[in-house]
């Protein structure tokens, strides 16, 4: 039974960051109708920003996370202004291709700047784990879980309790009417893409110190983010949050009790099942965006 509880605890920690990744992606898709293929690269950039801040600049570990989030926010806004704004109104395939290209540029950029050898980020947490009965968890992972949950709640509040969130929801429901009501829709798009990007960067900044940082780390993260978004229903934030935890649970239990060789396959098996039996996602009935 101890093994089972350990798997559940691992799920919680992993699920928190998966949820962050999924929310960022689904937010951008839901509001802007853009499939963001730079999501994985932004995750990588977030991790490298943390590495730069902590290992190269010697910044406090806890300041590195806000720095990475800010970096993701700025980079996301730049991508929206330079690439997406001129393409507004063009078909979804064109934007998709441009985003794939931008993703490749970002990934190759990190490879060029930092080299292919993985980097480790030092943390101030003790190596000895926290022992809770039969299970144990590292302090770093507890911090990651706490930070991820905080960011999820903050995003929820931003969308449901602020004027910016109200404008985002209005633009999502009917962007012409929102514009007539005086909502600056162009600004909303930039803000949405920046926020979505900063969530990807935050996930990278949180998981970078747990694992190691290397230029291709975003590839699998991006695939998983897509899996989570499909699982939760496109554009559904609550669905993405829950989807993140479901994917983590499937991976943990799949690897623990079925076969560890197929750990990463578990998530994709779930997507196939969802697409076959409930193509709109598990939570499609919930109100989208918020």
């Amino acid at each position: 039974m101890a093994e089972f509880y350990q798997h559940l605890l691992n799920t919680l920690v992993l699920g928190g960051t998966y949820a962050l990744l999924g929310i960022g992606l689904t937010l951008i898709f839901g509001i802007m109708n853009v499939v963001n293929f730079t999501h994985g690269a932004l995750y990588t950039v977030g991790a490298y920003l943390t590495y730069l801040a902590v290992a190269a600049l010697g910044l406090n570990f806890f300041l590195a996370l806000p720095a990475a989030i800010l970096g993701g926010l700025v980079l996301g806004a730049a991508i929206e202004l330079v690439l997406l704004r001129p393409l507004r109104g063009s078909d979804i395939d064109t934007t998709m291709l441009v985003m794939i290209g931008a993703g490749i540029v970002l990934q190759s950029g990190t490879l060029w700047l930092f080299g292919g050898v993985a980097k480790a980020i030092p943390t101030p947490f003790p190596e000895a784990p926290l022992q809770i009965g039969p299970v144990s968890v590292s302090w770093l992972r507890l911090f990651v879980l706490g930070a991820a949950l905080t960011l999820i709640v903050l995003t929820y509040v931003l969308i449901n309790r602020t004027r910016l969130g109200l404008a985002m929801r209005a633009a999502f429901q009917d962007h012409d009417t929102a514009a007539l009501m005086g909502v600056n829709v162009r600004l909303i798009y930039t803000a949405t893409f920046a926020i979505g990007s900063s969530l990807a960067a935050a996930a990278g900044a949180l998981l970078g110190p747990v694992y190691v940082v290397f230029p291709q780390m975003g590839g699998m993260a991006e695939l998983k983010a897509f899996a989570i978004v499909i699982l939760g229903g496109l554009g559904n934030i609550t669905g993405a949050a829950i989807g993140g935890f479901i994917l983590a649970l499937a991976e943990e239990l799949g690897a623990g009790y079925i076969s560890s060789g197929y750990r990463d396959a578990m998530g994709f098996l779930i997507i196939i099942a969802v697409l076959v039996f409930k193509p709109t996602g598990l939570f499609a009935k919930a109100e989208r965006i918020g």
Partner: protein
Amino acid sequence: MTRKTLAPALTHALALSLVLASSTAYAQAIRIGVNEPLTGAFAASGTYVVNGAKIAADEINAKGGVLGRKIELVIEDNKSNPTEAAAVAEKLITSDKTPVLMGAWGSSLTLAVMPKLADYETAMLVETSSSGKITTSGNPYVFRISPPSSLEAETFAPMVAKLGLKKVDFLILNNDFGRGAAADFGTMLKGKGVAVGLVETMDQGAQDMSAQLSKLKASDSDTIMITSAVDQLVLIFKQMAALGLKKRVITTGGSQNPDQIIAQAGSAAEGTMHLTTFLPWFPEKTPNPQATAYFIGEWNNRGFQFAGVTESFRGYDGIRAIAQAIEKAGSAEPAAITKAFWSVDFTGLNGPIRFIKAGPAGKESGQSKPDVYLIEIRDGKVAVPTL
């Protein structure tokens, strides 16, 4: 000469000089293809091997080269991906016209390259891969200086009783490297009366092994044998510490770079044991102390991290073996070099480099028999355990 004729004449002269320049450059240097993972999951290891290879090439060229010509390394990145590794081999042989290759680090990468070697009848020196299949599948263009996992297991066999192993679980990469190790060590352990429990696998790029480790924590074995490369080992040791998993750990494969493990995993690596093929910490205990001292000195001069030498020495020895094969061949033709590999004979940094026949008769591959050592990380340093 009028203006009209001047331009074509100049173009002609330029074209001619370009042809001459490229053909003289070609005649001067003997090109050696290097097919290594410089990005992807094995980037760290592949980069180390390439840096070791460069030291060998510079040393050989400083002494006048081979057959009176310089050697030139043509280095390509196989991206830790078998499909890319095969494509890189094809490019090196057909486009760069390299008469001999070194590569491709991982077993799955090397196995993917091997059909290309047969297609183009070009030999490859295998510097790192450990899967048994490489030298037993009847490819006469393969010459390996790294130990197959069966040889590692054989060297480890006398230590099994001394360490008091009772039951062993495996945590291995889900590829030819990992599965080959689990099979060879499993057979050896069962022969010694040691029980073999779980065999848990992980993908080469996997970063979270908590699920596998939680399962291993709950098993009743006393030892976990792990087969992977340094980056993943660092993660595994950290995650083991986080899960409070305290069992004896022995890693195989020779790509552990213990100093990098100590630096990145810290106290989580304390007490772990590693089967390695080079003892740079104790140059006096290596088979060729003088060469070891030169290599380590040169490595440090170039400002590389000391952690890399346990990996990079294979690139160094590999290029030295290739250079000797070219020398003995007396020409830079692929067929002559392939034949000459059989007469290569010198003391490398981890034992004699001399190829003996392995695999099916008539199509034998070459296998050298290097030394294998067991080391332990104790008090944040590398030590040789007294057994």
